[in-house]
């Protein structure tokens, strides 16, 4: 839609602006020195899990820990405590996660679903792609156990299950190594928040106002 000439104009201006850069220089000729750390500190697996829990809680996520065998009971009790009657579930979420939540109606994540329909759903339960301990972040990559991006956005209550054994990394650099840029990613660090009133942080704006993270051991 832009005139075909604009691309050439902009690229031409850039090349003239860089007259001081030797013509023969290629991008790989000027490497970037990366002397920063891959992780901040040495931690055992246990300490990494503790740090993740601490940082998630610091930004007002509600953190739970349980052995994998107790997950169905835990998920059911969280939904019951919230009074949720409906829960949207991505197709790849293991059946047993919700096996104890008998009274809660399951809404599948489907292409035809409208945003208004999702707005009337009480909760959403998903897995995650990776969790970052140093920042208290969970990352969703729209894999089958996480579903379309909108299902973790419109409902007001998100339960996210993190497997401590293989989904937690220490740092941002480690997380990026694991993630596939071709997939749409959502990095979540606590429930939605704003600093727009007097630069003071207030939780709870447009995204889910309650984020519960269940760290599953074993």
């Amino acid at each position, binding site marked *: 839609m832009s*005139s075909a000439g604009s691309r050439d104009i902009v690229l031409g201006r850039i090349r003239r602006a860089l007259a001081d850069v030797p013509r023969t220089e290629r991008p790989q000729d000027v490497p970037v020195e990366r002397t920063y750390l891959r992780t901040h500190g040495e931690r055992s697996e246990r300490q990494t899990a503790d740090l993740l829990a601490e940082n998630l809680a610091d930004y007002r996520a509600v953190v739970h820990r349980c052995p994998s065998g107790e997950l169905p009971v835990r998920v059911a009790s969280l939904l019951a405590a919230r009074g949720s009657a409906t829960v949207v579930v991505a197709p790849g979420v293991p059946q047993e996660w919700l096996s104890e939540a008998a009274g809660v109606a399951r809404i599948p994540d489907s292409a035809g679903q409208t945003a208004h329909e999702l707005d009337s759903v009480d909760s959403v339960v998903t897995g995650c792609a990776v969790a970052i301990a140093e920042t208290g972040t969970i990352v969703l990559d729209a894999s089958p156990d996480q579903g379309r991006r909108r299902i973790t956005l419109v409902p007001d209550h998100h339960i996210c299950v993190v497997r401590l054994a293989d989904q937690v990394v220490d740092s941002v*650099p480690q997380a990026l190594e694991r993630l596939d840029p071709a997939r749409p990613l959502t990095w979540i660090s606590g429930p939605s928040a704003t600093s727009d009133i*007097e630069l003071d942080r207030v939780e709870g704006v447009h995204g889910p106002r309650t984020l519960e993270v269940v760290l599953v051991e074993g």
Partner: protein
Amino acid sequence: MSGTYRGAPAFPKAAEASTRDRQLRGNLRHATHTIRAKRARAVAELGDWAQLRAAGAAIKDHTLRHLDHYLEQLEAAVTAAGGQVHWAVDADEANRIVAELVKATGETEVVKVKSMATQEIGLNEALAEQGIRAYETDLAELIVQLGDDRPSHILVPAIHRNRSEIRDIFRSTMGKWGRPAPDDLTDSPAELAEAARLHLREKFLGAKVAVSGANFMVAETGTLVVVESEGNGRMCLTLPETLISVVGIEKVVPTWQDLEVFLQLLPRSSTAERMNPYTSTWTGTTDGDGPQTFHLILLDNGRTDTLADTVGRQALRCIRCSACLNVCPVYERAGGHAYGSPYPGPIGAILTPQLRGTASEVDASLPYASTLCGACYEVCPVAIDIPEVLVHLRERVAEGGPATRHGTKVTIKPARGHAAERAAMRAARWAFEHPRALRAGERLASGTRSVHPARLRLPGPARAWSDTRDLPSAPPEPFRDWWQRTRGARGGDGGRATQ
């Protein structure tokens, strides 16, 4: 940039009024001091901050040196992933492209993610002229839009408003734009956030077209990144059918790995968080998930002119964190509106006169809107030496010289209004090159000190000093006379003094 700012008064004049606004001064002081200490704590958590900062600067410099290469790579990757790439030489072209894309969808409303680029080009006003209504969805942008106001901060455009002013704006104007605020709305930030949530929810759920900017674009993968807090970004990037992103060409980074630097630098510098609540990344379109049509508009609008200046180009490293605003003592007193641009504060003072040129009164005054105290440089996560660029741009204003405007090399004439100053600087330099004359002048001042009034109200430009400050009284003798009188006999040749 946008016509909104055309004819803005010079910075000193605007600041003279704003510094007298006690409410504004109080709001800014409170907000900036709150965030300053938090930022310092967030940064101190990372023992390798200096190395991250150096890498951030190096990645940006590397990218700028080969910007043409990385933009072409980005264009190819976005296109391969299902997006459509457009190029806009200036604000008018970018606005025209967005309007045409929106019209092609048949819609007359768009939801917007907070974006500096669209503020810069005055997109909302341009769309309004085409019968398209743009709804700002960031809380602070909403406050600005409802209040028929202008943004005054990069991160928190409504920083000049305190909670009770925000409540008043919500109560009086929300109803005109959609769902009204509850009658019993108080000024508690949680209630204000809730009112915004309800007001905007109906906009999000029905939106068909969204307009965004981006914090980063990854050349090798064609990925765009938006860093936010409230979830309004996710709403706009996920629910509509069509997404149009307007992004400055300097926002490209070469590799996916490069994000590991910026996703550590940005949140800690801007909101003082280890990580902001939400970061969204998308690469073209994804079947069945999110917008099925994606347009990327690559915006120049003065950036290539900035790139042509070897000293000034470091301003293009900026990641819009606003840490420099939050520590700036001048910004804190004058407020963001005095800068006459969507980019206020120290970064605005070096970015605006490069993007827009130094021809207008306000743009020529911006490089002088700083004491050169250096606090901005110290906190900048990509190590932009803002004082260095300020002085460089002062030279362009005062002495004139070569510059690039609209892609063409030009010679800037010295600014009008600096003639007397220029003469004074030359005279001072002459005196400083002739120590005997200097000494005579000093003696004259000392010799006539008995007739200097203690509280001199001086005429002309010197009144600017004497309105609020007393001048020191001239000493009985200058230092060099005392030296000559008490120690002169023993030499003090200085080797090769040239008297």
